[in-house]
């Protein structure tokens, strides 16, 4: 049985807190958050847990064996280091870090201490993506030619202190949104040789940004990753893909998923959102807890998380320089 100390009290912390309720081998015993909403958060999601304002104090004083980091990106490194130094296993939300230097420090801390560590590239646990990966691996589309992925949303308004709108902290859509698809496509098609980015951004109280990254994989396929925080408020979060190879293609679009619709919104608040028996976040955390319990290495390695950041760094450099950027020139 693992005692989880959750760090953060925002949207993702709530998602994880709810997921742990479905994982028999884990319970959230403590929550630490700088935000004053922490008491209300605990009251609503994990009423049995102890509340802390300081994460390190929680690590020292609370009954925790695992730390789950659901905080703004720049705080990932110090929090993972603090947990690792105390011998606590760590789960960290994506992106693993804001910069490659921070990412390297995270890897160093977790390897040096030998703790179990995993980054939340949750897309790998979305069945519609995992199934595509399985079919591509089985050769069902033949050799991949073009791999397109879209992730479209209104700008996130739920971040504390509007941190998503601060590119210094969040990295913008390329670090926060496109990184999901960078990791997934690298999982499917291997390492990336070069990227070329177009990005448009403007302010409207929140950072609005729309970007497309063309990727050339070392094995030859061409990727198109489109990420947006430019959609109007209340637009349903949309993801889509089209993976085409020389023997067929796979297409998915959330806008076409009609498995559960509630016309007029009647009683919507009382209807579970995910039309899956086990939602992807629960599958992700369940795998991590199983690794902690059994001593196995998690499917998503620190190197995977590092490489996803390297692609994002290259994509941002390309957007700024207007030139293609080769991954061999980025922090390798």
């Amino acid at each position, binding site marked *: 049985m693992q005692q989880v100390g959750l760090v953060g009290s925002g949207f993702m912390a709530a998602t994880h807190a709810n997921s742990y309720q479905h994982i028999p081998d884990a319970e959230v015993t403590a929550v630490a958050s700088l935000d004053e909403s922490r008491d209300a958060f605990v009251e609503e999601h994990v009423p049995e847990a102890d509340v802390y304002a300081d994460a390190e104090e929680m690590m020292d004083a609370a009954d925790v064996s695992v730390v789950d980091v659901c905080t703004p990106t720049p705080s990932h490194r110090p929090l993972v280091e603090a947990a690792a130094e105390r011998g606590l296993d760590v789960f960290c939300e994506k992106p693993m870090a804001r910069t490659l230097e921070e990412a390297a420090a995270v890897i160093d801390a977790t390897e040096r201490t030998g703790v179990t560590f995993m980054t939340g590239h949750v897309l790998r646990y979305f069945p519609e993506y995992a199934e595509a990966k399985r079919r591509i691996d089985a050769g069902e589309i033949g*050799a*991949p*030619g*073009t791999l*397109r992925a879209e992730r479209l949303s209104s700008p996130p308004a739920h971040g504390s202190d509007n941190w998503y709108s601060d590119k210094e902290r969040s990295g913008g859509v390329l670090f926060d949104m496109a990184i999901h698809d960078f990791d997934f496509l690298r999982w499917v098609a291997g390492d990336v040789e070069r990227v*070329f*980015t*177009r*990005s*448009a951004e*403007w302010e*409207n109280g929140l950072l*609005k940004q*729309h970007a*497309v990254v*063309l990727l*050339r994989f070392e094995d*030859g*396929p*061409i990727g*198109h990753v*489109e990420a*947006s925080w*430019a*959609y*109007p408020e209340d*637009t349903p979060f949309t993801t889509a893909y*089209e993976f*085409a*190879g*020389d*023997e*067929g*293609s796979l297409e998915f679009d959330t806008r076409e998923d009609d498995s559960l619709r509630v016309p007029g919104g009647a009683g919507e608040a009382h209807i579970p959102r995910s039309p899956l028996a086990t939602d992807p976040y629960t599958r992700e955390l369940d795998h991590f807890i199983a690794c902690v319990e059994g001593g196995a290495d998690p499917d998503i390695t620190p190197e995977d998380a590092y490489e996803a950041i390297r692609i994002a760094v290259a994509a941002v450099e390309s957007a700024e320089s*207007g*030139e*293609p950027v080769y991954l061999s020139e980025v922090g390798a």
Partner: protein
Amino acid sequence: MSARIGICSAAHLHADSYAACLDGLEGAEFVGVTAEGDEVERTKEKTDEYGTDFYAPDELLARVDGVVVCSTNADHGDWVERAAAAGVDVLCEKPLAPSVTEARAMVEVCESAGVHLGVAMPLRFCQPVRNAKAALDDGALGDVRFLSGTNRGRMPGEWFTDPERAGGGAVVDHTVHIVDAVRWLTGEDVREVYAEIDTRFHDVPVEDCNLLSMELSDGTSFVLDGSWSKPDRWETWGDATLRLVGTDGVVSVNCFGQTIKQTRDTGDAGIRSVYWGSNPDEGLVRDFVDAVAEGRPPLKTGADALDDVAVVEAAYESAERGEPVAVESTAERLRRPERTP
């Protein structure tokens, strides 16, 4: 009086649709078809389907006021030149030519002969595109900052994969429709292109992957996937889509999104989507026929198409050099002072 119209070569399959649009069109008389060389046989075979007659080239050109040229890309220039010499207006299948040099020669020959040259850009007559233009012109999107389009298809085979007759592959075939639509919608030209192209779907001597990342003259980003990436057994021929992201809103257009899902156990068995939306070719052919009758240029002129062809040329250059390439618009070229030797 009716405008008398002919079709020069049915080598391009779009001839079938234009012929169907001409059939019984008010104000138009569909006189006949012509072709030369190894396109004669295919074109002659079509006369029954089209309900029209086959003539030798000069004979047809003597009987018409306007022609639609649906030959291979490489032969566009010859047909346009012959039509111009006969004083006949031309609607040319896209792309106008594989290179800017050839395209410019076609524009010049028509100008000096005093005939109008148009290019077949049906998306300007696609109703969803027109609705998007209305939203744009109305300011509903604020400032447009990003455009993302697709124009995919199956690998078309035949002469389309012959570098000599087509002038290239997917870049030549599937770049200009959306580029023209974007230029028409925004009033901006493409000033830079970065291209990732390759041959990965089929064993053909031309590229079938065509992903372009562009910038418009006002700095707006514009990306386009014009690959032949649709499997042979896909539900229809391909797609044409465009997403316009503005500071005040987003509009997404799927030009051929109005479809019925048809399943047949017998006959032409299988599952396919059947388009039921308004046919943009009808507007295209209507505009050309009216232009011929009124002695005005069609909505999309050959001169305007030079800037589309320049994007195609720049895309190949970018892929060759592995870097973004500047596109010089016709307007910029004309403003540039001639260099003295």
